């Protein structure tokens, strides 16, 4: 883990707290009156958002970049 500045530590703590509050609100408010069965599952949006973020970065880094990366003056 990288060493963080005080401001960055505060931002990360705020994010963690916000995520926890949202999980609580999810339990209270979501899960009713939905179009798809997935929406009615609690924490669906949290899991989907988190997994999407991981998939995007890992695929971009380990699959796309090795295939497409060339020197900056490749076309010159």
């Amino acid at each position, binding site marked *: 883990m990288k060493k963080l500045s005080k401001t960055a530590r505060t931002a990360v703590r705020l994010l963690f707290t916000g995520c926890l509050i949202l999980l609580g609100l999810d339990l209270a408010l979501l899960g009713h009156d939905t179009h798809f069965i997935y929406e009615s599952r609690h924490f669906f*949006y949290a899991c989907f958002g988190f997994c999407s973020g991981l998939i995007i970065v890992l695929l971009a880094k380990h699959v796309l970049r090795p295939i497409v990366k060339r020197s900056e003056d*490749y*076309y010159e």
Partner: protein
Amino acid sequence: MSEPLHPVLIFYFSALLISLFSSRKIVQLLVIIIPLFGLLNLYSLPDGSYHQFTLHGFHFLALNIDPLSRIFAYIFHIAVCITLIYTTAFDDTSKLAFGFFYAGSALGVVFAGDFLTFYIFWELLTLSAVAILLKRKTDRAARAGIHYLLTHVVGGLALLSGVILHYLDYGSLQMIRLSLSGTAEWLIFMGLGVMCAFPLLHCWLTDSYPEASISGTVFLSIFTTKSAVYSLARIFPGQSELIWIGAVMTIFPIFYAVIENDLRRVLSYSLINQVGFMVIGIGLGTYLSINGAVAHVFTHILYKSLLFMSIGAVMFRTGTARATGLGGLARSMPFTTACCIIGAASISAVPFFSGFASKSLVVSAAADGHHLALWLVLLFASAGVFHHAGIKVPFFAFFSHDSGLRVKEAPLPMLAAMGIAAFLCVIIGVFPEYTLYPLLPYPVSYNPYTAAHIVSQFELLSFAALAFTLLLLSGIYPAEMRATNLDFDWFYRKAASWLIVAAGVIVAATSKLLELAGKMLVSVYHRLRTLPDYLVYTTGLKSTVRPIGESLALALLFMTALIFIM
């Protein structure tokens, strides 16, 4: 009754007028007054058809105003005003003149009521965009300009061919709703697809936008693709092929944007992602989805130009838009940072920002139609755009590590333009029912601000941000690198040249082989011709056998030719 003043004429005349003035103060005044006058003129015009005439048997309709063309025209007026205010901070008046001409051509496309007028403004739009690109006067900009021009010439030819075939089929040039039922419709569709940056036809966009000047990129981001989205909404609403074309557009740019170092190119990829949402909305074809697509055009023009303007301001002060050379500018440029964050929040559809009010319409339309796979794609794309445009762009430009750059805040006209755009992003986001929804082409009975919707959207985005944070802290997030990332244009920029060399080698080898075969054939022909002489000479046969040899030789030649032809 006299014809009303055509909005295009105001912009074209302004392009001439503004190039006459060199005083920056007068120009700054004009760039505010002219679009405001244009807006008033447009507001005063009731829906209807104006400027109609017949020439050589063709019926032209140059000004067709209905709710669809009106909302596009409104946002084009607002955007040109904001961008020109921004541009007066540093550029010469000739750039402003091109800006007016470019915006005027986009208005011409939007108001055209027949295919020929539409095509003429379509080509003028391309030419003025190329002129804006070339104004940067660098080698890379020139190459990007040629790339832009060639791609759009091909797209324009497809469009023109489609229009001609359509006229031959129907005997009318009136712009009507079409479906993909024949060659003419497919050609028109593909012509629009080039300008809309459909997948595989998109490389002109990510190649050229980051190479334009600071203001040029802002201009280009507003008019070209949105004119194409308008055309799709006008000609192909409800065309189901658009749904999956749009879905691909929302997904693939995300991966490129994550590994891209040039922040203006990151924004160019995210532009394709956002246009994908609009294309899906048009493809779904319901009132809600088309309203969503049009609303997304309106908000996208504001927040995307805001993002390009804030990165442009950074580039203006630091000389670079590459993430590797930036970082820690929030203290030096606090207002620009705030504007960039507002633009980032809007593009990410954070509740109470403009993107939320528009994107929700498209996502809800997909859910209402029970398109499960599409709905999941849209959620994935929403998380993805937050990742690269919502977090990456402001983070690497203004926060991240301290690059050591200590610069002044952006000049006042830039701040004013960014401030207006940021204000509109917030006001539309908070009060869409009073600002945006009344302008949409169909009546809206949609409320994006239900508790469940707000919580689910915050949850999606916050946990995507959590993934970003954990990946960054653990060192897994890909480091920014100076590199060229190959895209589909590699096939015609590199592979095609190799193919041409290979084809040249094959042609040269074949011609050598044919030359050898020809020499052998001539030699055999001569031997056959002289055979009777030889026989007469050696055996004493009568000279009448001589023609037999010539006939044999000719028959051989004829048979060889026949084999080649078959």
